[in-house]
């Protein structure tokens, strides 16, 4: 594996009775942040468990920080900070107990950074975890990971269920982490706003398959919604990259994932009057991608 890759999945498959991850190919460059987006049940958590070595692939190769997973999971995890939505701290322990527990395991546990994060996240070290709100639990979990300063952060839905203030605090802290160019983050969510804010690479997954993976900027540049007006006799010309087209009366809308000026020129040549070429949000792109992928599966 290239040292430039923090994570590589090659032809990975994992099969359950009612769900399969199939032919997962994914790579995360060192120093970059990948947003991993998919609807509920798409396979995000299963993919992340494969990356962490917590489940074994039926086929394919999983390599993380140069280690084969799950065979070398113990060595790899020294440099991985992992948090997931279904991870809980010990309810009868205080935050201080958890800090002491982690610092007894990780010799480089940064106690100064812990103090900073305790203040920034407004946490009480002496409080027992069972008295924490969901937001406090998430922030406490993140504190325990960040104070280790791992090379790779793998975060499965870290902002799910957080109120806007807690979400902002978590996002801000992750943005600080991103300042370090040697550290990589894989960040799964179905909240596209968070992903758009943090990521420089976006991967969409649905029904256990990767449906698209590329630079965020490329996504945002290439996807457009074109609104146009037409006469009664208009027929939509053949154009590459049309993901969805809707024609109602005299109004038409095309969604494309390969926009260029030639598309508007073609429409105009066929008698349409282009009214607007609109950029799309990541959420709109995500929904269109999933819909197109599912339509393709049905066809």
């Amino acid at each position, binding site marked *: 594996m290239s040292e430039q890759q923090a994570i590589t999945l090659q032809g990975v498959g994992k099969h359950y009775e009612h769900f399969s991850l199939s032919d997962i190919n994914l790579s995360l460059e060192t120093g970059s942040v990948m947003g991993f987006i998919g609807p509920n049940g798409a396979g995000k958590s299963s993919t992340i468990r494969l990356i962490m070595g*917590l489940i074994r692939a039926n086929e394919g190769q999983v390599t993380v920080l140069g280690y084969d997973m799950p065979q070398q999971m113990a060595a790899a*995890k020294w440099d*991985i900070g992992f948090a997931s939505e279904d991870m809980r701290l010990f309810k009868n*322990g205080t935050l201080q*107990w958890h800090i002491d527990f982690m610092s007894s395991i990780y010799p480089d546990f940064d106690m100064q950074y812990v103090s900073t994060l305790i203040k920034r996240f407004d946490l009480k070290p002496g409080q027992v975890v069972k008295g924490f709100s969901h937001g406090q639990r998430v922030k406490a979990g993140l504190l325990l990971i960040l104070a280790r300063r791992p090379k790779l952060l793998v975060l499965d839905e870290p902002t799910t269920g957080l109120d806007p203030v807690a979400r902002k605090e978590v996002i801000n802290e992750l943005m600080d982490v991103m300042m370090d160019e040697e550290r990589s983050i894989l960040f799964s969510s179905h909240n596209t706003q968070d992903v758009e804010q943090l990521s420089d690479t976006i991967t969409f997954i649905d029904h256990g398959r990767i449906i698209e993976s590329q630079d965020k900027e490329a996504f945002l540049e290439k996807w457009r919604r074109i609104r146009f007006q037409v006469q009664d006799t208009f027929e939509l010309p053949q154009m590459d990259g049309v993901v969805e087209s809707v024609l109602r009366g005299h109004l038409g809308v095309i969604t494309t994932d390969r926009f260029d000026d030639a598309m508007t020129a073609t429409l105009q040549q066929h008698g349409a009057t282009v009214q607007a070429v609109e950029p799309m949000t990541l959420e709109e792109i995500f929904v269109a991608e999933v819909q197109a992928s599912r339509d393709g599966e049905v066809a």
Partner: protein
Amino acid sequence: MNDAMSISTLQSSDSSSIVRELIRKDLYFNRGPLALYVIVGLIGIGLISVGHETTFYVGGLLLITAVIIIGAHLVYANVVQERNQQNLSLIMSLPISYRDYSVAKILANLGFFSVAWLVLLGTAVIVILAREGLPNGLIPFTVILLLELFAAFVLVFAVAMITESEAWTTVIMTLTNICVSLFMYGINKIESIQQYIDGQEAVWSGAALTVIGIEIAVIALLVSITLWAQSRKHDYL
């Protein structure tokens, strides 16, 4: 070659220090309840030593109950609830393999149970030897009975670890509890054990030693099966 060896040695020492921390963690969260159950068991032994028939039976029941509850508490708090309350994700995010996790669980649970069990067995034996009203012939029977409870605990622990199922753990725990009285009935039917129970000397008959040997072998077999089954698992969450 030397580098590879030193990396391997370093990782092995790292993982054993984490295993030690995981055992300390289990002790931290369970020390209070365990101490309480041991005290209940000691009260039971105290009642046995009074010398009346009623207190003897009540004390015996209290001792057996305490040993069963110590085992049940350890299995539910350290294995079943750790999974149900989603703490296992946190543990498995640490730089350990699943084998390290399994070894830590076996050492912690068997270790804590053994300490509590030895305290209660040792106290019971000392009390039997010290009290004139209690026949020393009870000692082999006490050892056999407490070893049966030890084996039952290891069985329930193995089921909890291997099946990862609260339902199966509860079923096996219920069955092992029902079997305690059947076991006592069965042991009393072995004449070469039963005939010495009321005697002034502790007699380790061939039958008694065979039962003890079988109990120890069952415990060792269950621990081995647990380690073997855990090492064959591919999915840990």
